[in-house]
């Protein structure tokens, strides 16, 4: 975080040439370059990194997107697509010598077919608006990131975003049927299909989560699901987080896939409770929220089993939501966790590692040790069902030492996640933020595969360059600074 991309001075001649080429087919208000007009685009949700783009373009339809890409390709200008800028890893961070391609004006729901249970939407459509449009038909779009009122579906596809219900209902990749994608040459390809599969390679899976490095998504066909008849949630409190972790395993062992399974540790509970009065016991070391949804019979059956499992697993308090308003109140605390923690400290840094669930206690102990080492506090919220951990490191960005410590703290958490068999990012993406940690998770042959695939789509590396996949040289440099266990990961590269 402390080392944002170097602010590049604007090359005015280049800027004029690019704007002129774009103005040939774009209306004047769709091409921005004045400092005050482009500054709002200088960062995404990871505001520690900022860079003003050379030019911002705001297309209103697919033809314009294609023409913009064709122009940038001809002029060899790098392009960064942007949805609504809620990303937490700097994926939409602009390039000082590049074009920022805002997809926010493409916000039409093109078609919604209740019988086929699909919606065809433009990329700038907000996640929640799809479910709102589907609601009159008793349908909804399942992936529900906490940012769903603000984030765009195009951004969701680019990040393969998840939500609290994804253990049961899947991530974005499981809920998208077809994409229209503009290539860097400005050509449209369709990946996926009208049915449940398509001929050839699964490029739909490859595009999903590719952080805008392989193409620009111009239309998305998503799957809609019937809204469950009802839902109920169990709130269980534990004296230590290891016991809570075991309770999660016991629920799964009983053959239950809960609709949602979230954990919060005491620092998170203490942050949330005064803020939202969700009814969480503040003396608990950790709480679990475990939701069941489905038909009335299913939910009644599952909730009574979950309740029993929580008690048998050593919960000192178990409560079942009595009605819809109580269910929403239990969830309100979890959903407000980020802003609530944000009130405790001038800044917080949200991490996103995933671990095998059985290693939870060990990882949380490790984080507690790191709190002492870096002299910073950390609150943990956890998508416990699928092992996705969000440690929130509290710091003050105005204090350079704290900023540096927060960054090192974060990197050490990610390394711990890899060491226990997990990954550096479960849903927020690599962006610029975790690019060095990619060198720890992947070896050079694997990184080369990523580069080769990127080259297959974008041979001049014009689409969102510098994000998601580090160059081998960068890793060699990083490795030189962080050699661990004496083993060099990139021995074949010259050290410089």
């Amino acid at each position, binding site marked *: 975080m402390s080392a944002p991309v170097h602010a590049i001075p604007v090359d005015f001649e280049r800027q004029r040439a690019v704007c002129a080429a774009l103005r040939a087919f774009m209306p004047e208000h769709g091409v921005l370059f004045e400092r005050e007009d482009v500054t709002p685009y200088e960062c995404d949700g990871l505001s520690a990194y900022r860079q003003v783009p050379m030019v911002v373009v705001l297309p209103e339809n697919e033809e314009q997107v294609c023409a913009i890409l064709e122009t940038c390709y001809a002029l060899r200008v790098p392009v960064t697509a942007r949805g609504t800028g809620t990303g937490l890893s700097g994926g939409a961070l602009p390039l000082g010598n590049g074009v920022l391609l805002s997809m926010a004006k493409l916000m039409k729901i093109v078609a919604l077919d*209740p*019988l*086929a*249970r*699909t919606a065809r939407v433009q990329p700038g459509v907000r996640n929640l608006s799809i479910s709102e449009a589907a609601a009159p038909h*008793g349908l909804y779009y399942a992936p529900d990131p906490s940012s769903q009122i603000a984030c765009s579906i195009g951004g969701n596809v680019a990040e*393969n975003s*998840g939500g609290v219900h*994804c253990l049961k209902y*899947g*991530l974005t*990749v*499981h809920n998208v049927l077809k994409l229209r994608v503009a290539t860097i040459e400005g050509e*449209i*390809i*369709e990946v996926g*299909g*009208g*049915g*449940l*599969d*398509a001929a*050839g*390679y*699964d*490029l739909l*899976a*490859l595009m999903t*989560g*590719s952080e805008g490095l392989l193409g620009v998504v111009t239309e998305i066909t998503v799957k809609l699901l*019937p809204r469950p008849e009802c839902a109920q949630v169990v709130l269980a409190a534990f004296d230590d987080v290891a016991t809570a972790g075991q309770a999660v*395993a016991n629920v*799964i*062992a009983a*053959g*239950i896939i809960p609709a949602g399974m979230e954990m919060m540790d005491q620092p998170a509970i203490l942050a949330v409770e005064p803020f939202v009065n969700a009814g969480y016991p503040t003396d608990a070391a950790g709480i679990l929220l475990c939701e069941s949804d*489905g038909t009335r019979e*299913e939910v009644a*059956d599952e909730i009574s089993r979950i309740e029993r499992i929580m008690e048998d697993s050593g919960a000192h308090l178990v409560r079942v939501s009595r009605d819809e308003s109580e269910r929403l109140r239990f969830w309100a605390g979890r959903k407000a966790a980020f802003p609530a923690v944000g009130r405790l400290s001038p800044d917080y840094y949200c991490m996103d590692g*995933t671990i*095998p*669930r*059985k290693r939870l206690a060990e990882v949380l102990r490790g984080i507690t040790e790191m709190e002492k080492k870096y002299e910073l506090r950390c609150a943990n919220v956890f998508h416990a*069902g699928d*092992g*996705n951990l969000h440690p929130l490191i509290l710091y003050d960005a105005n204090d350079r030492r704290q900023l540096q410590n927060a960054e090192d703290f974060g990197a050490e958490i990610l390394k711990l996640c890899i060491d226990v*068999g997990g*990954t550096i*990012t*479960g849903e*927020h*993406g690599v962006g610029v933020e975790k690019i060095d940690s*990619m060198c720890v*998770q992947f070896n050079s*042959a*694997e990184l080369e*595969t*990523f580069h080769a695939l990127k080259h*297959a789509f974008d041979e001049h590396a014009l689409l969102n360059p510098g994000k998601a*996949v580090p160059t081998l040289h960068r890793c060699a440099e990083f490795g030189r600074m962080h050699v661990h266990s004496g083993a060099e990961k990139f021995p074949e590269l010259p050290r410089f």
Partner: protein
Amino acid sequence: MSDPVTQFADAIRSAADGKRPLNIRGGGSKTFYGNPTIGETLDVTTYRGIIEYEPTELVITARAGTPLADIEAAMREQGQMLGFEPPHFGGNATLGGCIAAGLSGPRRPYAGSARDFVLGLRLLDGRGSDLHFGGQVMKNVAGYDVSRLITGSLGTLGVILEVSLKALPLPPSELTLCREQTQCEALALMNEWAGKPLPITATCHVDGRMYVRLAGATPAVHSALAKLGGETLADGATFWRELRDQRHAFFAGESPLWRVSLPSIAPELQLSGAQLIEWGGALRWLRSDSDAMSIRKAARNGDGHATRFRGGDPRSGAFHPLPSPMLKLHKRVKQAMDPAGIFNPGRLYTDF
């Protein structure tokens, strides 16, 4: 003797050096699927066994040569299953072949496809490099999703060594209902019911009858049965297993078998020959001597694609032709993973 992985990697490197094709082979249960390929056989069945299975983590990791039946038996013992209900097409089917073919069974529209359940894999690429992608956790967005790209690529991108899959619990109770229904009515009902919160896990229409599998908590299954109506089939499990492995009478005989993938609401296919519908309407099996062109045109017009699954005229490729920008991209992806073009050439498309 060196371990199997070193042997495979050596074989790949020497094949790449000499530009000699390799025909990757698991149990051979799906040799019929796709176009014929050439090359020296690379038998991967020696690399077998379950590496790790943690029921409470909902993950199983096994080597590619492991018989699918062994994996399913180990999971059944723990009250779990592979959610995509993979077809076996023979007792010797392996995990590697299952993932390379990427085929899914009757549960697919309700639980997800083979690629949906793939969490990670280890493979040897065309340079013989040993690569890991994805992992053993449910959520992982570090790097491109290569594991899911490999799924269904029919061995043309690499030699799959190990696969980690998400597990699902076996439903506590299951029953199959059966009703007399025309194809048109069945299509309408399948779509209508899929839009309701009902515990449906498989659907089929064949010979004027519609079959629906209900699964989940016992009270939920019984209340759904009461809601939907129909007689219950005595041996539902056998019906779905035979359908999955194409041992149902519909699949007997020599006439060409086409697999047509369409939007679930697509109207009845106007093509000669018997049809069997699966996947809530999204999969139509067709026994037809009609020419490939007209079958593919009908599929294309319906926003789908058609695979010549078994039999028929081998001069028409097994898979639906790709539009030219897509073909170009496919060749580049192939080039990225297998620069010497040695893995199963032509198996997917004759061009690469």
